[in-house]
């Protein structure tokens, strides 16, 4: 196999993954998709590193990718925790809710394309609530459910 051609191909694949991840990170509003995009950028870098490691017949590239995996795992844990916290506070995964850190007199970023009262495509019928509203089970609240 032509090693330098292999390297070149891999570098371009890495660049494409990285650039695609960038686009996703910039434009998507869903925090989890943003995170996926960031991971994709890491993938692009990993591809580059492995290719260079093969080109130089050196294990360093693969070592670095192993550490990238480690860091990605840590990042995933932390990011997940943060996303959960933010979700708990706002009830939404929308990153645009968290633009309160802008300068005082800056105008807020508002959506123009879709009206805020957007309804998802499918509207499934809901049963009308009927009967007596169940009371909270006192025993369940006051007794330990488990060890």
């Amino acid at each position, binding site marked *: 196999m032509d090693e330098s051609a292999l390297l070149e191909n891999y570098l371009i694949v890495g660049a494409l993954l990285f650039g695609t991840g960038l686009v996703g990170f910039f434009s998507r509003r869903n925090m989890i998709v943003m995170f996926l995009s960031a991971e994709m950028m890491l993938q692009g870098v990993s591809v580059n590193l492995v290719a260079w490691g093969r080109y130089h017949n050196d294990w360093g590239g693969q070592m670095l990718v192993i550490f990238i995996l480690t860091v990605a795992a840590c990042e995933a844990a932390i990011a997940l925790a943060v996303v959960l916290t933010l979700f708990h*506070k*706002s*009830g939404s995964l929308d990153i645009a809710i968290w633009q309160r850190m802008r300068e005082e007199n800056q105008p807020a970023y508002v959506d123009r394309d879709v009206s805020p009262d957007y309804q998802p495509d*499918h509207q*499934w019928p809901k049963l009308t609530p009927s009967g007596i509203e169940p009371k*909270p089970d*006192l025993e369940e*609240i*006051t*007794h*330990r*459910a*488990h*060890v």
Partner: protein
Amino acid sequence: MAPLIVPLVKIGLLVFALLTAAAYLVLLERWIAAWVQDRKGPNRVGIPLTSIKLFGLGQPLADGLKFIFKEEYTPAHVDKALYTLAPITILAAALAIFAVIPIGSVLPLDLPGTDGPIKLVVAPGVDVGMIYVFALSSIAVYGVILGGWASNNKYSFLGGLRSSAQLIAYEIPLGLGILGVVISTGSLRLENIIFEQAQSGVWNSFTQPLGLVVFVVASFAEAARLPFDLPECEQELIGGYHTEYSGMRLLLFLIAEFLHMVVAAFLIVILFFGGWHFWGMPVPADDIISWSVAGLRILVLIAKVLAVILFFMLIRWSWPRFRFDQLMNLAWKVMLPLGLVNLMAVAAVVEYQHAREIEDLSTNAWLPVGIGWGVAIVAWIVAALFAPLHTDNRPRLDVLQPPAFEPNSLRSK
């Protein structure tokens, strides 16, 4: 062309064998269920159009036909792409695992274009074999999650969520159980692991009983077999993630489940019970093996696997289901520490053997076996003391009044 033909033949045989086995395992399971419940199992269906019943051996065929000819019903509210993708994913992953699992050792068949005897494994020489198994079993989770989510049904959804939490949780003790074997063998190839045990005659289950326990429990959970079949338990979730499925798609799910069990049985046998090895069998090198020994090895392996599968089924019909919190407690508070203890004990023994340059395990088996069992007993006692699984129903002192309703201001916005 031989380099291509041999694997293709292997794959074809394997897939055929597995699918048939899965079908007949269903029959076996039903028989065992009947036996356990002291009733008659399926015993009617024999050869069609005759009155030959053959103990009901035709039942799987009938079942299969029924599944195949049933209407392929897709509910209107499902996410169609993922609804279709889910069973395919899970079956594909389950089948792909078998690529690295050796069924016996080799066949002394010298075909032109191949070098040496034919290895009885689809992808021989995969250096990361064990991790490959691990990776594909984690892919299998997707089938369950996507199936549950795409069904757009609360029961399915809960089943999918439970499944993902359960499988992720039990992957860790599973890995710890594998790691003990890998450390003591020094290789990730399943063939090497079997060969190592065969050479010394000391199966890993003797030296690592704790690892065996951890691995068996974790593989039960990974296969979602009965004490751990929370994702699909009928009483709570109707059918879990495959509530909305029927026909071929349901068949794929069911086959995949049985394949998981088969994989688990294979792994238990290979990792802990010496694979094709049995005492008294000659252990020659691969290239001078005779047909009789090769066949014997396959028989021994299959017998062991069948025994483990029987064990699985017996457990299924004799053990009640865990509650979900108990399941999680078992994973994180019992199995994880036990697995770590086993790992450290194995590492210590291996280091000791390295330091003393003890190469041949067969003559020095007492030390690792003794340590393994000692550690297992002590760890088991400690775990039993510190993580009792009984239910504590004392009144909670912290909550004696039902909590007042507190509107979440942020969320309501």
